[in-house]
């Protein structure tokens, strides 16, 4: 299927949701927030492997930065403790600052890379930091066999491919 060019707004109007892919967390480094860089087979025809891995790796590095244990995080923690945590009423934590950066990055990636290919990344924060949800859209006008709505039936084909996970 030739890649369809869409802007983010056009995507919502003209395309219908075909299926969703969920990139799970990678716990090999402990409880820190990292996502698997394994390329989902459902995206095989939609996006280059390298672009996808690049996105996930950058996200992982952002999360690692947010959860970094070092001098500055200790300082923040001790200062907060000394003020009985009232300082958080006026100050944003380092983690929250990085999360804002992440959401900007995801929006930028969506606009530049994913929407033109009929895909949409959802910020993991909206999914409880459990998964990166990637929505795959089918163009309503061109594709005749697109299935919209129920992802369980449409991702039945993708489920077999995901068996090796």
């Amino acid at each position, binding site marked *: 299927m030739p890649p369809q060019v869409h802007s983010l707004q056009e995507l919502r109007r003209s395309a219908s949701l075909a299926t969703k892919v*969920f990139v799970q967390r990678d*716990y090999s480094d*402990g409880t820190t927030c990292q996502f698997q860089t394994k390329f989902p087979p459902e995206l095989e025809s939609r996006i280059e492997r390298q672009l996808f891995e690049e996105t996930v790796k950058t996200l992982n590095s952002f999360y690692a930065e947010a959860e970094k244990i070092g001098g500055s995080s200790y300082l923040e923690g001790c200062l907060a403790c000394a003020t009985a*945590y009232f300082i958080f009423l006026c100050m944003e*934590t*380092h983690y929250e600052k990085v999360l804002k950066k992440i959401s900007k990055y995801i929006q930028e990636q969506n606009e530049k890379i994913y929407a033109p290919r009929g895909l949409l990344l959802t910020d993991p924060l*909206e999914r409880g930091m459990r998964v990166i949800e990637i929505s795959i859209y089918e163009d309503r006008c061109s594709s005749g066999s697109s299935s919209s709505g129920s992802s*369980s039936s449409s*991702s039945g084909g993708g489920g077999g491919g995901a*068996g090796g996970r």
Partner: protein
Amino acid sequence: MSVMVARKKVVRKWEKLPGRNTFCCDGRIMMARQKGIFYLTLFLILGTCALFFAFECRYLAVQLSPAIPVFAAVLFLFAMATLLRTSFSDPGVIPRALPDEAAFIEMEIEATNGTVPQGQRPPPRIKNFQINNQIVKLKYCYTCKIFRPPRASHCSICDNCVERFDHHCPWVGNCVGKRNYRYFYLFILSLSLLTIYIFTFNIVYVALKSLKIGFLNTLKETPGTVLEVLICFFTLWSVVGLTGFHTFLVALNQTTNEDIKGSWTGKNRVQNPYSHGNIVKNCCEVLCGPLPPSVLDRRGILQQEESTAQEETCTRGPGAQEPTTAQGPCGQPEESSAQQNDGSLPHQSAVPVPSLSNTEMPEEKQPPAGELPIPSQDTGQAEH
């Protein structure tokens, strides 16, 4: 509570969150459902401190030093601030999987396990992961429909999966987990110091005043002193012991839940892969490490499409104060009945405190129901 009828009022996400939590101040405050013991905690702290400031402090400030009530006030304010922070904040609840995600995971599980013929029990859903060269199992939570991250556990009292679950504390009226463990620790630490402080200065007060007017007259003049000393005496044994226990846990980077289950102890068990091996580093990480924000988004405005999806999941309105023995809407009766059984299981060995008849210790160490391997549950439902 259905909000599908057209209302002018904005619906926020907390109103539709599943789980047995109470929300106040339009979603800013989040607590467990049973708050009775929390009110008792508040009453004891406020009452004892009020008596101390009203009676003993007046005498001691004049006779000894005005710094005494000042320091007591600082300790009191710090203890109250950390208590309220522990009780009102999100302990690290993991939101339940939305239907799409749950279906995706179900398919993955079926693909790995193969479909089970009708009538047979499905195998327990476990994924194996390797962390720091040790295998850690991830369990699937049937209520939340997710694979629980390592160290997370499902609290059957609040009916939520909580990250780095420590225990459910009825004294603070909330679960203690990743996001509020440091507040909890600082609370019990400052409460220990406050209790020791008040106890000591009560003794000093009685001693000083007795020299002037005699022991019995002192007690007659300020009868509150006896009450304070009694409360402090019993609190001392329990809270100081608990602080010691949690200091031990923090130094080893363990949770109460792991300690009770014996996850990292014993010959054939793996070593704790989360410990840095260094006490100082462990303390720093647990108490001063980066604090992730809540992922629940309680005050977000509910979009229309989300509200239809969440109608199907277990919803709980904040207003209904249902009795704890009632079944949760998701119908998990085994867990709530198991809760009463677990309370009597011996676990004093985990606590380096002489076991007394006072009820504070056992209740505070109450393990979340369903976390301990209960023989009756193993065969049927997967354990939570």
